[in-house]
């Protein structure tokens, strides 16, 4: 009787997760994420970013807003501690304080291409990541974690791994963890994720001056 009770209890506890665990392999998980993202036109969210620098004992924390618009436009607006806005339009990356020559150089770097490929995750074409990454996806605790390990040297100089956590049932992006080649780590936690809100194109075109 006790054994039956244990089985019942386990079934009750695990049922929601099992029901949500719609994938049993990397291919299946990526397909599930792609399917969930297929109807995504825009994403907006808040984020908290924690930079663990190997040279410092304490982490550096910043907060801000993130926006994505299909096919490949992104806006990272850091609000604290120091306002800054980064705009990504395909391989065009605009960073405050960057000179025109820096901008041109940056467009040629692996980072620009990497952003473009990461944007594919939001656009429902995660399989495209396999061009430059070894991709694994594993379900756990009501979410799917996609681990990207660069396979080309130029990208390996940027990151050792990138982990993206998509939460069921709609596979919204919940967090990103980037481990770079210098031993530093960047943890980004998303909150208040909104899908398919109306985001005007102008949001991705201009950087308004920071509030005084």
């Amino acid at each position, binding site marked *: 009787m006790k054994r039956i009770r244990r089985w019942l209890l386990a079934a009750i506890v695990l049922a929601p997760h099992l029901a949500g665990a719609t994938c049993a392999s990397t291919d299946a998980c990526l397909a599930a994420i792609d399917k969930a993202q297929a109807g995504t036109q825009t994403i907006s969210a808040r984020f908290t970013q924690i930079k663990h620098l190997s040279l410092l004992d304490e982490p550096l924390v910043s907060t801000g807003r993130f926006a994505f618009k299909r096919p490949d436009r992104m806006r990272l607006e850091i609000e604290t501690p120091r306002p800054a806005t*980064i705009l990504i339009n395909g391989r065009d990356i605009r960073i405050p304080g960057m000179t025109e020559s820096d901008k041109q150089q940056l467009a040629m770097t692996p980072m620009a291409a990497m952003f473009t490929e990461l944007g594919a995750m939001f656009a429902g074409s995660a399989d495209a990541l396999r061009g430059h990454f070894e991709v694994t996806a594993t379900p756990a605790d009501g979410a799917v974690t996609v681990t990207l390990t660069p396979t080309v040297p130029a990208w390996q100089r940027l990151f050792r791994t990138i982990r993206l956590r998509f939460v069921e049932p709609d596979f919204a992006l919940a967090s990103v963890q980037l481990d770079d080649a210098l031993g530093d780590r960047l943890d980004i936690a998303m909150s208040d994720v909104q899908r398919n809100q109306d985001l005007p194109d102008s949001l991705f075109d201009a950087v308004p001056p920071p509030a005084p």
Partner: protein
Amino acid sequence: MREAIAWSGAGRRTRPSSPPGIRAALLLLLALSGCPRAAQAPAARLPSSPDARLAAVRAREDQVQTLRARFSSVTRVGEEERHTDGVLLVAKPDRFRMRLMLPFGFTVFDYLNVGEQTWMTLPLADAQQRERAGAFAPFSRQDLAEAFLRGPYAFPGECTPAPAAGDTVWVSCHVAGALRRTYLIGADGIAEETSYDGDAPRMHIAYTDYRAAGGTTLPFRITLDYPQRQQSVDITIDRYEVNPSLSDDLFAPAPADRAN
């Protein structure tokens, strides 16, 4: 002869070809020493006698054997500006490391010096840019040693103090009869420092916002000007740690560099 040797992330040896803005960022940090920003106590005033004031400044600098500083900087080249956040570690007599980050957290630059060896990593750079690593950071080891390691690097040859206008002291340092460095020392600390190439000023550094910290007095605002390059760097120190314990691991080359 001033010569800078840098190693790119790919382990390629390069010779800097032009002075960059990042260099300024490096230089400035050094001269400071300090404590947390919370320390708002006024700076201790230096003695009035020229000899005693110079001795007191050098004694202050010698108090700082290790240093960790977080800073933000604005580099101006012509009408263009670059904003960067960074961390500097110094362990005298011969080790220092500086890392710079973009506003959204990516590490874009790592410079490590241990003794006579130097490693420079540019994670975001492509192969061509790494080939031209010097254009990003043409540090001369001499400049860096002056800025970060101080001691005889900062006060070369024979340095002579003399009374100057107001409550300031003028110090000039000569090597084999040639002027190498001048200082204007105020009651709080060094106000201006100028390095020379021949008779021409090569680099001018202004120190302000002195505060008491960690048993010494340090500047929290440093401005570097390179008159011949029309380039300047404003550095604001967010936080100092004076004489922290810095493990040897912090001065180990990055894995990619080790592999090379």
